[in-house]
């Protein structure tokens, strides 16, 4: 780890100021990706701005028909929240499958989606529920948020404050764990929402995406059988030593069917 300046701002405004003032500054949320990266000297930010002292960006509450989760809320809190379990059990289920207990108690929802690891679980949860990402400058629809490999719609200086999840009619998450890392080789979230059926896939491609053909099929007939023969084009998927693209394409369909069958 190389030397850096450490800041613990007491407000979002102060954090934003610090971020603007230092060109090579990085926000520190749970640090589950950033800290190992620093330790391996793969990143060397001049300044680390720790968000853990910033008030009002941690915690879970209901506002109307939405569940609002603060950016600094650890995965374990979401997994164990009675409110989330009651209103969006699929999201609680997803959060409870991230990493291991240590990661779930340190890692945060804001950190996870800002990092946009292609194999992270939360992007499927955010995209699959049609959530809205709230930052210090604007609101971003999940559909517009994940742009590519570790790439999001966030502008420089933008800080995620929280995520607003519309309460779905029903949702379910299915995941094939990576045997080494525990990340999703493939993760599929299927949700029935006020706006229709949503199928979000993580782990399979460079970033989380929606499986529109599956959504259409399920809109017409919400049954596992309606997904027969529907596969994602393997050409667009990740291919690595742990899982071939063809395998991932196959697993997306299997997990989507299993999610639907859980209804």
């Amino acid at each position, binding site marked *: 780890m190389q*030397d850096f300046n450490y800041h613990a701002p007491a407000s979002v405004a102060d954090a934003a100021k610090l971020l603007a003032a230092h060109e090579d500054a990085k926000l520190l949320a749970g640090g589950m990706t950033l800290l190992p990266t620093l330790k391996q000297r793969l990143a060397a930010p001049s300044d680390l701005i720790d968000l853990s002292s910033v008030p009002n960006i941690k915690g879970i509450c209901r506002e109307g028909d939405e569940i609002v989760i603060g950016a600094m809320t650890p995965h374990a809190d979401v997994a164990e929240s009675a409110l989330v379990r009651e209103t969006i059990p699929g999201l609680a289920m997803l959060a409870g499958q991230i990493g291991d207990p240590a990661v779930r108690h340190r890692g945060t929802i804001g950190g996870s989606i800002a990092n946009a690891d292609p194999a992270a679980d939360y992007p499927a949860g955010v995209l699959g529920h049609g959530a809205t990402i709230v930052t210090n400058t604007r609101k971003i629809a999940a559909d517009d948020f994940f742009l590519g490999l570790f790439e999001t719609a966030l502008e420089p200086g933008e800080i995620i404050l929280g995520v607003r999840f519309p309460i779905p009619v029903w949702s379910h998450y299915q995941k094939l764990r990576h045997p080494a*890392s525990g990340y999703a080789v493939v993760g599929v979230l299927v949700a029935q929402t006020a706006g229709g059926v949503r199928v979000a896939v993580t782990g399979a491609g460079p970033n989380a995406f929606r499986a529109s053909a599956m959504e259409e099929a399920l809109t017409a007939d919400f049954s596992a059988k309606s997904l027969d023969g529907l596969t994602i084009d393997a050409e667009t998927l990740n291919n690595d030593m742990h899982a071939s693209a063809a395998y991932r394409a196959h697993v997306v369909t299997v997990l989507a069917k299993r999610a639907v069958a859980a209804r």
Partner: protein
Amino acid sequence: MGQFGIGQPVRRKEDVRLLTGKGLYTDDVNFDGQVFGVFVRSPQAHANILSIDIEAALAAQGVVAVYTGADLVADGVGTLITDVEMEDLSGKKMFRTKRTFLATDRVRFVGEPLAIVLAETLGQAREAAELVMVDYEGLPAVGSTAFAASPDSPPIWEEHGSNVGVHWENRPVAEIDAHMAKAKTRVTVDIVNNRLVPNPMEPRCAVAKFDEESGVLTIYAPTQGGRRIQGGLAKTVLNLPPNKVRVISPDTGGGFGIRGKLYPELGVISWAARKSGRPVKWRGDRSETFVSDYHGRDQINHAEMGLDENGRVVALKVHTILNCGAYMAENGPRLPVSGGGRIIPGVYDIVNFYFSVKPVFSNTVPTDTYRGAGRPEANFLMERLMDAAAEATGLARDEVRRRNVIRPDQMPYRTQMGLLIDSGDFDGNMKMAMEGADWENFPKRRAQSEKNGKLRGIGIGNFVEAAGGRPTEEMRIRIAADGKATVFAGTHSHGQGHETVWAQLLNEFLGIPFDDVSLVQGDTATAPKNSAGTFGSRSSWMGGVGLQRSAKRIVEKGTKIAANLMQTEPEGVSFAGGVFTAGTSSVTLVEVAKAAHEPKNLPEGMEAGLDESYFLERDPEEFNFPNGCHVCEVEIDADLGHVQIVNYVAVDDCGFVLNPVIVHGQVYGGVAQGIGQALTENTVYDEDAQLVTGSFMDYGMPRAQHFSMIEALFNQVLCKTNDLGVKGAGEAGACGAPSAFVSSVMDALKPYGITHIDMPLTPDRVWRAIAEAKAATAA
């Protein structure tokens, strides 16, 4: 015997200390004035070193010194040791690689160290290490075992002209071909035995200082016994007499065979401490574990076996390629031959055996001993052959094994490779394991799984290994005036629980209370002169029997002192349960110990004290033969290719069990590592010989979720070649698990006609095999 005697399930006395953070590990040791050393490692798999520019690093803040391979060579530091000799049938000797402690003119694998930077802080040393500028001239690299063995691969040792170090054979192949021709049924198997990164919990670490006044170099490092490392450091690196080098291994977080070696880093840290005049500490991290700890396994096997009309094996031919890595490590090339090859016919009575081994070079980390060291590979191969034989003959998998196992009435049994197996009940192991796993009712369980949409399989794996390692060991017992005992062990516990077991032995043989025995180990200054260490499942035999005989000497001397105290003749004195008795009078060992320290109480001419040691030496060709049978049952989610173990029974014959709790732990750990190899672990180099699986993000260690409960049973047959009747236990699990597991998966996949998938059986591989089988059927 009593509650704390041998054979009792005594709880490990070291656990409270270790589990409450009170252990002392190498990284806990610091010397005044120490600097930190960081190695500069090659990012290239194969390259000439054109130049190394250390100017910028030397000028960096806090830097004390930068040394390169040239500095070591100039100082007369030699090359690493390869303790192996092999030759082909014509007498042509194995090509021997030479490895300097830091690479000088060429690097041959990613991670090979070529310089060290010393600085006041670890951070400064790391910063400066990045400033060492190396000009490389890249060379074609060899990343895979199969490529290394092919004549098309560029030789990474040009002076040898080939990547094959030697072609060793046990006999002319024509001899066996004649037998093979007579077989009614012939089966072949082709296996890639995957390369593993052993990954002890504690990464390597070292801290060394040189004392000008005494001329003694002291180094702390996790090892499996410092004596061997002491010799190499003294002779090859420091040019000092061995008694001027002190190696201390405090608590050590796992050994598994790979911690017992003189690694280049240990040499460089020691040398740098003397050269710089400052104590030097190196704290290896997990990334360095992956690229610098010796790796394990990595073989390609091709084998053919012939059977007669009764399902008896009439001929066996095995061709093995071992990937040695870029350099031959201490034992590396010997593993297939003296580790595994000698027991390849396994538990089976196979007379006509041909065996060929080619150690090959590649641009990868050297391979060496890892839990089982050749024996897991050999047993796996043999058991895959037996499954293939069952398939080809139509006999059940247990039946074809039963027809071929060595029977108790054949013991002692001389194997074709010359070893004498003293004892074992191989058929009984199978019976016990199959009963324990309720093999008989498996079809019912399979039917139930099928109802739930899952495939189910059951598998069996026999194994035998030759244990004992080096043929000498020395153990010492010192009893103080208060009757408390200290064991000075030549062995070294780094997870095996010797603090507990050695205390049990003293409790058993001397009646000393369990809590009154302490263990001193891991320091060459206090270890017995002929200390060897702990590896090759040897401690129960070499250490245990050594201790038992030391105890006998304590009793002999104690008897004379007791006789003197009781004013009688030694011949009339007996000893039991810590008490010397003669007629109606008696004295305790505590009283004798007290007297032993007061010369006035001693018989004429007797030396004061109660301090005895025993140097145990056995025939180097004599081993003990731990053996067993494991049965594994799995369920497979065919849509995902995901395999889940649902039941596991391990039957082990490790002779007399000194402590069942500890041996169970050994079995669980060994099974976990065996299943790790078979299910999750794989070391992948790409075509450019870059290590792709260099962290726990990509290298799959086995986790609790991968297992079911493991039932560990014993089928104890006392070993006839040592006084305690013990056989090794540490490596057994890793020998039995891969074959039982793979057998169970193939059983589940039998409906698809799949007979083999190379380890690890990851979901991707299992699914692909099923998909290909389905496609083949459809076509």
